[in-house]
């Protein structure tokens, strides 16, 4: 496998312009003869399909939900970054580029990140034109707020529902193309396999989630926008149905998977409270604009709180430890997510945690309410406060919120080159499904930016470059041995899963899919979560293997393949998570350094900060699938920093 990042020649700031001026185009009459498959209707998928449809291509788009508007981008809360410099506070394309590279702990590709910063402003223009109701000030101009890892205010927002509003904008654009007939929508459909013919991606096998039937679709190119794989940890801020399987089947068919161990743990989520819990709810990073994070200074106070004898308001000001402000005076409560998460874990592990479990810290708005008044705080964060109150039955205007880190986002994903093309020609990946822009840690409000940059402003160019010579191929039909083989293998996989629990001698030794998923999540969180060591990763490897073996002997899936069967859906996704978990562990094991979200306890500074090893690990780890029972093969893409000066990542 050869990794060619295809970065255009020339100075960094001219690369994208040069690319666009020299790429190949497809003339309008030929565009309608070319078919494109887009998998996923989140920000990346919806914006890509809408833009490609508007250009005149024919697009088939697929989502697992009942409507494209429900993709999990909808749940993004805080905002979207763009280098508009509307606040006159020193922002620029260069600054956003540098912040993103630094935020990613110098593990992202320069040229991709620069392009992201370059098109960020266009995204805001596009969204406003679509009617996204961004927050405004009294002059009618757009308002901004600050997010972690930046010293400027470059985040555009729509209350605490920015993802929802951006997705509804893209969904509107998509709906328009559906009405025009350029895009065909397939809802409640799940991609089960990729069809590769003569080395090129030519189609997909889909399971209709209502009837259970398998269907075939053919196209000249396939674009994967299926999101991340955070649910491998079971408890995460992802939606219940978010899954890594669409990307994983592409990996099985030959697409390299990059940096799987880079997983983002978000510092501000509502803490875990019981075994029946199905997901963790995020409290937006934007809250750290005005909320102050603290734990008691004295252990005995923390202990009294855990026993329920004291409340946070009983702790005097001088007995509170605002540990982020103490450790990171320059960025304070707005340090990047990985830093804030580790700091919370450090305090809780040291015995200062609060809540009944001791695994929580306070996020306190008392100061903000005193300074700004309750009304202003309510205007800014009202819906988040309401959400917190509905879940916890506590009033955050009176009592500080309790928060704890949780799995949120995956920086790793399918390896792509500058054109967002994977190692399989004709297969592209965008948004969270690819690995490209966030290095080892993503900054807040940058996922929305990347999803829309890829869909609105990158893929419409790079896909054309690929499709230009495809006009000679003619229509691709969903037939032939490759389609037959792919469909048969999916059918065999489903049948064998359903047979497992029925083969077993003793039905009481069987377990549900959730039983295994919860167990896998616990192992991953415990041994391959916020802190990893050679030892813990060894334990994780062993435990995952045991669980996987048990799963293939004792999982019980009721019902039939040919009907609506959510248990079967969960089962085939979990089967892929087992393979993915093994790869995450292998990647975390080989990366003998700490960077961004990947923290190896053997590699830290005296004061507990990440310690990179630029000499040996300044590369992207791209893994090649070798078969279910074989270890994967790692390839390296060296990262060359021509423009950025590499320094220690410091937020003090």
């Amino acid at each position: 496998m050869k990794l060619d990042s295809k970065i255009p020649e020339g100075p960094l700031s001219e690369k994208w312009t040069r690319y666009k001026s020299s790429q190949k185009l497809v003339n309008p009459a030929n565009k309608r003869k070319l078919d494109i498959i887009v998998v996923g209707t989140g920000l990346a998928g919806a914006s890509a399909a809408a833009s490609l449809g508007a250009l005149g291509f024919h697009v088939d788009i697929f989502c697992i939900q009942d409507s494209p508007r429900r993709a999990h981008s909808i749940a993004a809360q805080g905002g979207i970054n763009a280098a508009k410099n509307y606040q006159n506070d020193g922002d620029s394309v260069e600054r956003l580029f540098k912040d993103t590279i630094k935020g990613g702990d110098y593990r992202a590709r320069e040229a991709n990140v620069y392009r992201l910063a370059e098109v960020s402003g266009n995204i805001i223009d596009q969204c406003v034109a679509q009617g996204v109701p961004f927050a405004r000030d009294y002059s009618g101009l757009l308002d901004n707020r600050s997010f972690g890892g930046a010293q400027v205010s470059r985040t555009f927002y729509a209350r605490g529902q920015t993802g929802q509003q951006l997705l509804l904008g893209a969904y509107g654009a998509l709906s328009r193309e559906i009405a025009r007939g350029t895009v065909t929508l397939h809802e409640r459909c799940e991609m089960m396999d990729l069809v590769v013919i003569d080395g090129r991606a030519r189609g997909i096998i889909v399971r209709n989630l209502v009837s259970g039937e398998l269907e075939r679709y053919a196209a000249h190119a396939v674009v994967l926008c299926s999101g991340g794989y955070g649910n491998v940890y079971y408890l995460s801020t992802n939606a219940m149905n978010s899954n890594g399987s669409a990307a994983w089947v592409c990996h099985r068919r030959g697409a390299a998977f990059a940096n799987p161990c880079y997983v983002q743990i978000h510092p501000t989520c509502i803490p875990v409270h019981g075994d029946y819990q199905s997901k963790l709810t995020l409290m937006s990073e934007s809250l750290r604009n005005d909320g102050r994070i603290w734990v008691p200074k004295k252990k005995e106070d923390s202990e009294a709180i855990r026993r329920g004898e004291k409340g946070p308001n009983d702790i005097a000001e001088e007995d509170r430890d605002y540990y982020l402000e103490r450790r990171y005076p320059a960025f304070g409560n707005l340090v990047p997510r990985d830093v804030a998460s580790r700091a919370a874990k450090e305090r809780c592990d040291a015995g200062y945690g609060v809540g009944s479990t001791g695994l929580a810290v306070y996020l306190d708005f008392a100061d903000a309410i005193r300074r700004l008044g309750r009304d202003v705080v309510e205007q800014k964060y009202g819906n988040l406060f309401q959400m917190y109150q509905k879940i916890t039955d506590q009033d955050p205007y009176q009592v500080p919120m309790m928060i704890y880190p949780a799995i949120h986002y995956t920086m790793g994903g399918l390896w792509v080159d500058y054109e967002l093309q994977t190692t399989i020609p004709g297969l592209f990946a965008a948004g969270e499904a690819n690995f490209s822009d966030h290095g080892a840690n993503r900054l807040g409000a940058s996922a929305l930016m990347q999803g829309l940059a890829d869909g609105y402003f990158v893929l419409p160019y790079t896909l054309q470059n690929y499709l230009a010579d495809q006009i000679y191929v003619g229509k691709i039909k969903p037939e032939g041995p490759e389609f037959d083989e792919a469909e048969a293998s999916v059918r065999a996989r489903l049948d064998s899963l359903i047979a497992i629990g029925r083969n077993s001698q003793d039905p009481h030794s069987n377990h549900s899919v959730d039983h295994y998923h919860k167990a896998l999540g616990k192992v991953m969180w415990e041994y391959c979560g916020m802190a990893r060591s050679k030892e813990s990763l060894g334990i994780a490897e062993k435990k995952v293997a045991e669980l996987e073996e048990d799963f293939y002997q004792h999982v019980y899936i009721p019902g039939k393949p040919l009907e609506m069967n959510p248990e079967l859906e969960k089962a085939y996704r979990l089967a892929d998570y087992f393979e993915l978990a093994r790869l995450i562990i292998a990647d975390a094991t080989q990366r003998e350094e700490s960077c961004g979200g990947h923290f190896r306890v053997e590699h830290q500074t005296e004061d507990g900060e990440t310690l990179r090893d630029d000499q040996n690990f300044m590369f992207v780890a791209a893994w090649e699938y070798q078969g279910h029972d074989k270890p994967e093969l790692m390839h390296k893409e060296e990262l060359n920093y021509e423009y950025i000066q590499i320094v220690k990542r410091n937020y003090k």
Partner: protein
Amino acid sequence: MHFTLHIWRQENARAKGHFETYEIDNISDECSFLEMLDQLNEKLINDHIAHPVCFDNDCREGICGMCGLYINGRPHGNDDGVTTCQLHMRHFHDGDEIWIEPWRAKAFPVIKDLVVDRTAFDKIIQAGGYISATTGGVPDANNILVPKHKADQAMDAAACIGCGACVAACKNASAMLFVGAKVSHLALLPQGRPEAADRVHKMVCKMDELGFGSCTNTYACEAECPKQIKRQNIARLNRQWIGQLFGRDRNN
């Protein structure tokens, strides 16, 4: 806590449905309604009692609009301003009987158990619930000034999650609150004005065509909306509709 659950079971769109009764024990009051159903399903699977109950759900934080159950005669249950996934068991009493049904509306046929087909909402949006802004070639974002109070009102309307509770709550199964919210969101913004008359015309015609009922101003929709979308949006929809009938703003 212990509950007696009466749940609508229906094998598929063509089958006849009926209520089944299940008992469930050891439910924490901190757990959400859907987590209670997860525990029921776990029990049904482990004890081989029946196939698990199908219900739509996804984000479980009240924003995707996927979940929607009719609980004891109310869409999304007995707490105000929440979706089913945010409803917590502390709002019930130990020993309660709970009746759980799917949305009931001609335009939302049942697919299986508690899962309904809401693609009619997508079709209404496809009829014109957007601003036609092709990618690229748009002005700088700050070239379009939007008065703050208008932007806030537009945002209030745009908060709709498309769950369908308004239709389920309405005795006529009318979609006026859903359509009113989208029409208002776009009509309140200067970007949405050029297409406003056409938009309201097409969306209302599509709504009627798909079998949604008429609005008789009872406002059960407003009372049950998990995002507390206001009935003023229906009034604005009506004003827009009448305006376009008399040619105001039409094709300007």
